[in-house]
């Protein structure tokens, strides 16, 4: 990589403002969260703020509610992600075929729609479409003989609805990433392989897969991060309910901090989540962004 050695002051002038901004809005609040997490800090009892050391952390580490929310979040990831990859790969291979240019372009453009949809709107749409009485999903299922299903009011079904929308929104993303990978396979190699064997699985396994790996790694990293961040869609769809059946980690911390007003405990939870996120991204990013090395 060609680069220039320049004076420190020049570097500072170019990159300093961005670093300063991220320090001020990213790191400073984190330090404050660190301070809050060491206190009993309830928004309704601000007169009683008191230093309690690591008590909040000890509570979180042994708190079933916290780890259940964490478990739910990873459950969503391990169910939804393989389906997104399988469906996405299918769509990518289909779009990679020759011919039918107009229809394929149209498909590619419609794949953009789910990804761009405001997450909060996806949740609202979920409420409308999966409503037990007025929802179109139950109507469509009724045509093939199903009795109305209580989607949002039932713990298991509500979780299924969350999985459905996650798949709806992010399968197109996986498909487009993998399609981009497929187009990087040199034409001659692919043609030659197709002459050798008729089985598309063999071509996929031995010729195309190596070109798909960077994209798959990116998908893995980003879907993990985004699932740990997932809030908007679930909040507008179920608010974490019924009970706590769809309360993912972000929703749980938001509830503790802003609906139960226990900022001290919520900060401790947030910092533990942050540590988990950093460990995961450290692991992942080392594999993906080789430039960093």
């Amino acid at each position, binding site marked *: 990589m060609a680069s220039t050695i320049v004076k420190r002051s020049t570097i500072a002038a170019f990159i300093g403002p961005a670093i300063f901004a991220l320090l001020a809005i990213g790191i400073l609040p984190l330090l404050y969260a660190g301070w809050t997490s060491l206190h009993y800090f309830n928004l309704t009892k601000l007169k009683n703020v008191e230093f309690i050391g690591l008590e909040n952390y000890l509570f979180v580490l042994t708190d079933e509610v916290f780890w259940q929310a964490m478990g739910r979040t990873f459950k969503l990831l391990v169910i939804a992600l393989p389906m997104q990859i399988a469906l996405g790969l299918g769509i990518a291979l289909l779009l990679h075929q020759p011919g039918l240019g107009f229809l394929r372009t149209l498909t590619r453009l419609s794949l953009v729609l789910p990804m761009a949809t405001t997450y909060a709107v996806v949740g609202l749409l979920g*409420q409308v479409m999966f409503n037990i009485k007025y929802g179109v999903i139950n109507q469509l299922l009724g045509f093939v003989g199903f009795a109305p299903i209580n989607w949002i009011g039932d713990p298991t079904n509500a979780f299924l609805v969350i999985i459905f929308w996650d798949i709806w929104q992010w399968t*197109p993303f996986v498909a487009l990433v993998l399609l981009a990978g497929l187009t990087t396979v040199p034409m001659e190699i692919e043609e030659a392989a197709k002459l050798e064997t008729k089985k598309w699985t063999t071509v996929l396994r031995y010729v195309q897969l190596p070109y798909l790996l960077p994209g798959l*790694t990116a998908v893995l990293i980003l879907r993990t991060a985004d699932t740990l961040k997932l809030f908007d869609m679930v909040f*507008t769809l179920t608010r974490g309910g019924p009970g706590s059946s769809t309360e993912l980690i972000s929703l749980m911390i938001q509830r503790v901090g802003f609906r139960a007003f226990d*900022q001290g405990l919520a900060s401790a939870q947030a910092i533990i989540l942050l540590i988990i996120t950093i460990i995961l991204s450290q692991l992942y990013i080392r594999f993906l962004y080789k430039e960093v090395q």
Partner: protein
Amino acid sequence: MSSRSSSGSGVSQHLTSQILLLLLIILFCVFPFYWMVTTSLKTQILALESPPVWLFEPTFANYTEVLTKDGVSKTLVNSLIVAVSTTILAVLLGCPAAYALARFEFRGKKDLWFWFITNRMISPIVLALPFFLIVRNIGLLDTHLVLILIYLTFNLPIVIWICTDQFRSVPFDLNEAAMLEGASQWRIFRSICLPLAMPGVAVSAIFSFIFSWNELMYALVLTRNNAKTAPAMAVSFMEGYDLPYGKIMATSTLIVIPVIIFALIASKQLVRGLTMGAVK
């Protein structure tokens, strides 16, 4: 002869199944939109028909009502102010930083890269908690400024990542030639590299706009009435039992349409933007 004709029908069968599959994918992606828009054109009575009706006389009453009576227009303006300002700020701060990462050699560059990516990974709730307490103390709760600043936590990394990638693709010879002529780094950045990197800058700006426009959690936590954004407004319709489905879907449609337009404009770069340059 017979074998050739059978293989011919095999090809056409193959083609038919492909067409069907493609149409199925389109239907799967588009149907929720179709449902959102049609529901937004129903009266409340129609929206609460069970089972739902597919053919009806459309009305724009929901749109006029949310825009004139319920104050959705004000929240759309708020969303626009916030998204545009934070995007401009992210580009102004991010472009020079990206240039430095692409062109200069310095110690700690690797760590800096890592720090920028980690910002993309952090859950917003981690920052929402302390940010709320801080801005409440300094009296900035419910202002545009707070959202503009906190959205930089995800916009700035995006701009830096996409633009660094773009600056690297600008031929280094141009830098060397300009340096021989005695041009300062700032001149080279402004007059040579930046114009050539404009496609990347534009894409990163579109992304920054989309992410800011779509954001809900910070808006929910940090605004009340004054600076409330459109997604937060849509959520506030969700109280009570008889939900105004038509109005909710009308507001949703108004929120989603500008994003869709931008996303379609940038559709070729979408993958690159969402994977922060990891996949081109």
